[in-house]
């Protein structure tokens, strides 16, 4: 559960509440960005954890972390399943 998952910002949902839509290995869900210094721009990469963007990362780091997580198999699949069930507002 402590995995930080790389996600790319694909849409702004509600700037006031800090909500953006992200793409995680093809799963698109809303996450909260209030823990970042500023709302990340479209296309930016963030590490997400339990529905929150925790830090900004660059694309190299994002892709490399994703490859690593995919290599874990089951724990990453479970994380994606739980993300799929999420409807953060």
């Amino acid at each position, binding site marked *: *559960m402590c995995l930080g998952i790389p996600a790319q910002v694909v849409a702004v949902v509600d700037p006031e509440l800090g909500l953006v839509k992200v793409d995680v290995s093809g799963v698109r869900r809303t996450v909260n960005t209030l*823990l970042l210094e500023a709302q990340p721009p479209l296309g930016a990469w963030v590490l997400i954890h339990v529905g929150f963007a925790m830090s900004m990362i660059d694309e190299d780091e994002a892709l490399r972390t994703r490859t690593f997580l995919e290599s874990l198999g089951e724990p990453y699949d479970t994380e994606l399943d739980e993300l799929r069930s999420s409807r*953060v507002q």
Partner: protein
Amino acid sequence: MRHVSEYRTDDVAARLAERIAALVEPGRRYQLMEVCGGHTHTIYRHGIEDLLPAEVELVHGPGCPVCVIPMGRQDDAIAIAERNEVIFTTFGDMLRVPASHGSLLDAKARGADVRIVYSPLDALRIARENPDREVVFFAIGFETTAPSTAVTLLRARAERVANFAVFCNHVTIIPALRAILDSPDLRIDGFIGPGHVSTVIGLRPYRFIARDHRKPVVVSGFEPLDVLQSVYMLLRQINDGRCEVENQYARVVREEGNPQALRAIAETMRLRTTFEWRGLGFIAQSALGLRPELASWDAEERFALAALRVADPKACQCGEVLKGVIRPWECKVFGTACTPERPIGTCMVSSEGACAAYYNYGRLGRRRGRVAAAARAVP
């Protein structure tokens, strides 16, 4: 299918392993604690120990949030979940944690409304959707997760969602490390520091380890190469007689941490005088409770809880595993009475728990095989 990059990784790993072996000074042993369960997972999953010389031993630390929740708190969680008016929301990992009378999963089978959520914000949404029910979120985790609970609480307060409450079990990593450093059972030469916790707290909180205890710390990323590189950095510090806090994971962890996250925690939570950790006992100022201003959203204020100290099952040696005193396979019930399907202790529940990680990746067989092979080699 393996990617080209994976082969390249193996190559770099082998070279790093050679450099680590070259650092080992004759007659010296190096005991390094990986604090975080995420690292434990990587170490077993990728067989890192097989790459290291026998003189370098990795010892698992207390950094698995599921593992450290004591029986009494889990009993209280189940008591809340079994109330008729309650929808109890939790991360999936907590469902199978054993308590005095079964787990949350057993409570669910008996009819309790227990739901898995991905985020505390999902719990808050469920509260909005069910105004006639009490929705309780089972908050667990280190400083990585506490800020998310904090922001959710601020939202609940701003929107006046009155039927939402948090059962707060957030813990803080530094007091646990202090307890381990003060424990007479153990001699640790250096620490592989947790990556994601450090994105929140930064590097400063670890300085006392270097300054007062004269032990090096390297905050590390989660990939096999990260862990190997951190071992290399620790050995160099030890050989040089240096005790510093170094940052191997600078691509994500900043010196000052995440000020927004720290502010959100400070706004909603305060340190408890003391808190019980599974296997480690009571540790002063090691956990977070809600601030009095948020009492209306505090499950501990809203429901009368037993709040008892409940002893671990006799067979359970999780405390020794969490302190790194014994290795998972040295527990008497490991893999027999205690398995991921029917765990006796918490370390067998989460994939970040040392026992589950060891069990899942068949290391027992491999190690036995290795020991057997070594035994055969003796004429």
